[in-house]
C-alpha cells in the first residue's frame, strides 16, 4: 500500500482520527527537534517545544487547510510561533537567544561532552546571531528547506529569502573566523 501524503494524513487527524498523528510525528519530530535545538541550544527546551508543537497541531487541527499549502509549511509556521512564544516567555528578546550575560564559555559548557570542536564553535557562533538570521540559517541549511518553502513559511518573496540567507551566512562567517 502506498504511503499516504502528509496532507492526507493531516486531513484524517482533522476529521478526528487523532491516532494518525503518530505517522506525522514519526516523519517530522527529529527535524523539528533539531530546528528548535539549533535555535535554543538547549536539549530539554527543544524537547518541550517539540512536544508543545504537536500539542498545538492537535489543538489547532481545524485550522489546517491543504489548499493553503503543504503540511510542511503549515507545521513550520507553527514551529516558528512556538519558538517565538518561548522567547517571550523566557523574557529573552527574540533578537537574542541566550542570556546576554552568558559567555561563550558557558554556552560551550552546555554543549560539552557531545560535540566536536568545530560543531561546538559553529553552535556558539550561531547562538550569537540575531534570531531572524539564526532561524533562516536553520531552515535553509540545517533543515534543508528549499527557498520556495521558506518563502511560504515566512510569507516573503524568494528573492528576499536569498538575500537574508546570504546576509546571515556573511555574518556567521565574520563571527566564526574573526576570533579564531
Amino acid at each position, binding site marked *: 500500500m502506498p504511503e499516504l501524503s502528509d496532507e492526507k494524513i493531516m486531513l484524517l487527524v482533522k476529521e478526528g482520527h487523532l491516532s494518525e498523528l503518530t505517522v506525522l510525528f514519526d516523519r517530522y519530530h527529529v527535524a523539528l527537534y533539531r530546528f528548535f535545538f539549533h535555535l535554543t541550544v538547549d536539549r530539554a527546551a527543544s524537547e518541550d517545544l517539540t512536544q508543545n508543537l504537536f500539542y498545538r497541531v492537535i489543538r489547532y487541527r481545524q485550522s489546517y487547510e491543504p489548499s493553503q499549502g503543504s503540511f510542511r509549511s503549515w507545521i513550520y509556521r507553527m514551529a516558528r510561533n512556538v519558538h517565538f512564544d518561548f522567547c517571550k516567555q523566557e523574557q529573552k528578546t527574540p533578537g537574542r537567544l541566550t542570556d546576554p550575560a552568558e559567555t561563550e564559555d558557558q554556552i560551550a559548557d552546555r554543549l560539552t561532552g557531545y560535540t566536536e570542536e568545530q*560543531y561546538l564553535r559553529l553552535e556558539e557562533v550561531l547562538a550569537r546571531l540575531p534570531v531572524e538570521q539564526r532561524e533562516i540559517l536553520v531552515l535553509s541549511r540545517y533543515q534543508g528547506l528549499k527557498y520556495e518553502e521558506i518563502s511560504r513559511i515566512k510569507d516573503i518573496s524568494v528573492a528576499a529569502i536569498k538575500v537574508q540567507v546570504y546576509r546571515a551566512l556573511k555574518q556567521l562567517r565574520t563571527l566564526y573566523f574573526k576570533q579564531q
Partner: protein
Amino acid sequence: MNCKEVQAAMIEYLDGALHPPAAAQIKAHIDACSECRREAEELQVLLTAMKNNNQEMPSPALRENFNTMLQSELNMEAMANILQDRGIAEKPRARVVPLSKAAIAGRVAAAIILVAGGVAIGMAIRSAPDTGNTAEIAKLRTEVNKMEKEMKEKDMLSLIDDESASQRIKAVSYAEQMANPDQQVIDALFNSLNHDKNVNVRLAALYSLSRFADRRPVRDSLVSSLGIQTEPIIQVVLINLLAEKRETKAIAPIKEIIINKKTLKEVKDAAQKGLKEL
C-alpha cells in the same frame, strides 16, 4: 563579473546549484580575486560544517511524552463524548466505542505483541465467513477471545506499575476492552484513579471505570473517589458521571466540593449543575 555579482551568486555556486556556464564565470573570478576566494573558502567550511553536524537526536522521552499526550487527548475526546451524550437515553457507549478503537489503533505495536496470534486467527476467520462451518468458527472465536482476555488482564496488571506514564495509560486502557473484568482488575483501576501521580493515567483509569459504573461496588468506589480527588478535570468528569447515573450517594461529596474554598470555580459550577440533577 565584479565582486558584488559574484557574492550575490556565491551560495548557489557553492551549493552547485548554478548552470555550468554561470559557475565557470564565477570560478574564473574567484581564481583571480583573493578576497572572493577567501570568502568562498570560508563559507564552504561553514556550509559543510552545517551539513555534517546535524546529528543531534532527541531522547526517547520525547516520543514517550508524545504518546502520553496523544493518549490523554484521545481519553479527553472520549470523555467529551460521554458528557455530550448525557441525557440521550442512557446510551453513552455507542459513540465511545469508535474512539476507543482509534485509541487501540494508535497502540498497534503493543497490540501486535500482545495478541499477535489471536488477531491473526481472528482475522483469518473473519475474512473467510462463507466456509460454512459456523459452529466451529464460533468456537474458535470464543477461544481466541478468551485468550485475548487472559493476555490483556495479565498484561494490564503487569504494566500498571510501570515507571512510564504512557505504559500505565496503556495498561488502564486495556481494561476498557474487557467485557467483564474481574475484581483484581477493578481494584487496580481504582488504585490508579486514586493514587497515580500522573493525571492522564488517572483520567484514563476513570474512563475505563466509567464503563463499569453500573455495577454497584464500582459505583460506590467512584463516590468515595470523589471525596479524595483534587484535580479539577477528574472532579468534573466524576461529578458528571455520577450525576448522569443519578447516584444519590454522590450528593454529600459534591456538596463538600462546593463548600471547599480550594475548589475551582469551574468545578463548583459543574458541581452545582450536577446537584440539580440529583
